[in-house]
């Protein structure tokens, strides 16, 4: 079609903390915007546009991007606010470059849930007339999904707890996540009620943080990076809002998003070496793994921590969920695993990973999903 190819050139993230109490939003944002260019030869002057993801509700501020334009490096540039997870912002940016209208774009996502009521953020998404009054919300949806999944496929609490412990351990090692003490499976099981049958630590933990991803047209990316990672496919899909009409034990919209992304990439299936997946809970992560085609229905646990695909070497969303930035972080980590696999304990060189999947989700009970395929 003559459309430009687009690559991830570089990424930067802040440490992900339960609370960044000594820093404002603009501090987190400007720190990643300032450091993402390091070693690329590209500077802010070369950036054609900035696309950002954040939430007015979490920020407690209308049109909150408006207050952060300076920190975003967007002054006198084209800027857009995508009020979804940052992976959707990246999708917008890739389209902008593919069209030929722009060559270099900066994608930024951030979150500071420590200053907000996370429950209010989720519950305000629920249908206002019939569902809100009865108290239905994200936790209820997440618990119901887990109940249905476990009923359909079996699986034990301990299996889920072991998955969570493995993810926290990976997050401490590779995820840039501040963790006082990595929980073991027993701690996860004893962490108190989260959303029955899930314990508190089986739910994704909201954290503060920011991430920036620099994307560019192929010729620029090749000059700026020794190992540009090409975005070869993108897909998104949004399921029904009415939770009762969704299939409780599968993520139909993640399946549709993956089909679309793989189709655009020319993949016949989930033919990847690396996958970075967002899950609202331990069961949500298994459902996402299955929806992406990395395992059959009910088989997610068997490939989640050991299998031919390296899944969530960054730890994924369970130990660190900077709401609105989680999926963009998955893109950053997936790209880094292809460009510098040894940093994640993967083999480098000729036998190293060449294909990756990045996944983001949004909405109550992971209503909306976005999938990228990456290749070097």
């Amino acid at each position: 079609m003559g459309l430009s190819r687009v690559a991830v050139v570089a990424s930067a993230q802040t440490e992900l903390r339960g609370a960044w109490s000594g820093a404002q939003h603009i501090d987190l944002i400007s720190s990643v915007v300032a450091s993402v260019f390091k070693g690329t030869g590209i500077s802010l002057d070369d950036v054609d546009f900035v696309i950002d993801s954040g939430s007015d509700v979490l920020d407690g501020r209308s049109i909150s991007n408006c207050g952060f334009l300076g920190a975003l490096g967007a002054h006198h540039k084209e800027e857009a606010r995508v009020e979804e997870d940052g992976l959707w912002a990246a999708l917008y940016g890739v389209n902008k470059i593919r069209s030929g209208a722009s060559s270099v774009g900066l994608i930024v996502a951030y979150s500071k849930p420590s200053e907000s009521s996370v429950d209010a953020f989720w519950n305000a998404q629920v249908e206002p007339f019939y569902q809100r009054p009865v108290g239905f919300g994200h936790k209820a949806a997440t618990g119901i999904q887990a109940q249905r999944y476990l009923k359909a496929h079996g699986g034990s609490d301990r299996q889920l707890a072991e998955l969570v412990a493995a993810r926290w351990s990976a997050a401490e090692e590779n995820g840039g996540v501040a963790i006082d003490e990595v929980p073991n499976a027993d701690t996860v099981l004893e962490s108190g009620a989260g959303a029955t049958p899930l314990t508190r630590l089986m739910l994704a933990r909201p954290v503060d943080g920011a991430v920036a991803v620099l994307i560019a047209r192929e010729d620029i990316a090749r000059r700026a990076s020794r190992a540009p990672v090409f975005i070869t496919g993108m897909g998104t899909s949004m399921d029904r809002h009415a939770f009762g009409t969704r299939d409780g034990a599968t993520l139909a919209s993640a399946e549709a998003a993956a089909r679309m992304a793989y189709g655009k990439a020319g993949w016949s299936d989930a033919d990847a070496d690396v996958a970075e997946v967002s899950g609202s809970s331990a069961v949500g992560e298994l459902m996402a793994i299955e929806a992406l085609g990395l395992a059959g229905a009910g088989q997610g646990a068997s490939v989640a921590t050991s299998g031919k695909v390296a899944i969530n070497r960054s730890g994924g969303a369970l130990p660190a969920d900077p709401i609105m930035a989680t999926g963009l972080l998955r893109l950053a980590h997936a790209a880094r695993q292809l460009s510098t696999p040894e940093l994640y304990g993967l083999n480098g060189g000729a036998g190293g990973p060449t294909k990756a999947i990045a996944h983001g989700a949004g909405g109550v009970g992971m209503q909306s999903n976005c999938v990228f395929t990456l290749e070097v």
Partner: protein
Amino acid sequence: MANLNKGRHVGIVGVGQTHHSRRRTDVSQAGLVREAVDRALADAKLTMDDIDTVVIATGPVLFAAVNQPEKWVADAIGAQLKPIVRVTSGGGAGFAGGLAGYYQVAGGFADRTLVVAYDKLSEGALQYSISTLYDPFWGREFAVGIMGFSAAYWRARMDVLGHTEEAAARVAVKNRRNAIANPYAHVKKEVTLDEVLESKPLCWPIKLLDVPPISDGAAAIVLAAEHVAHKSCDRPAWIHGIAYCCEADNAAERSLLLSEPLALAAKHVYRAAGITNPRRQFDVVEVQEPYTCFELNYYESLGLCPPGGAAELIASGATELNGDIPVNPSGGCLGANPIGACGLIRLIEGATQVMGKSENTQIKDAKLALVQSGGGWANLRGCAVLGA
């Protein structure tokens, strides 16, 4: 690597909007969206099955107290399992949504994209919501709502350029008169210059009749790539250029006389569309004027007159319906103001003019339209050139 500077051509092939009003108690936000979408799909001779992707745009979610409302309204338009994304940009949200949709088609992600924008302002506390725009530590104490800032801005133009209240009042008279022929407008009442000047000061020099209404309303367009556009209509409105720029919000460093982000956007867009003399080349202009004084700023920032020349331009009658560069034949925001939808409504009004099917006063032989929109506190500004 051929075609590096040209993506796919994108046209507007179907449009729809609601009959905007102060308070729609008969529909929810989702129902409002459905009305506009049904009309746009019918206009494009398509059903939802033909749509590849959907962009939903609204003003700040505090306006209507449903967070991420795209996830709710998706059900009402039958878009389940389609790619849906929400874009927001304050008052310019509708235009920003159109821009996001444009790139989905231009970048090859979709052949047909439905863009829908709406606000149901009767359901929230508008000026309270807008007040939270300002910095929580340094701005909110004194910057109440958006009117105070806008009044200061207008006063600066009066002091520096010698413009008068009368110049802006002429905008009110013109746009309010034009809105009478617009079947979707919410306020249809002719006013005289004296009535505007004598109307109640709300935040001087802003007076009651300089201010648009607060409306419930939705608007939708179907964007199509060239190879499928003609299935919907013989004469699409092609987007020859579109951009939306910003300036950081440090007010002390901003010159509010010309809009820097709008001038920047116009530079990009005019280059893409081959515009060298906007006053002569455009047949019709649609701008989003949250207060009358802003329309004057846009004349200058868009190059329809020299900097400082807006008062003279409006006084000359050139921007009237029968002038050489009619601005807002639809009546603009003074006719209807569902904020998050306004940018998309301006695109619709510009598009239908060049498609030759305006439901307002059709400008004869209109071939090239200029559309402007913006949001934030006047620091997010964009424009587009549409041609048949």
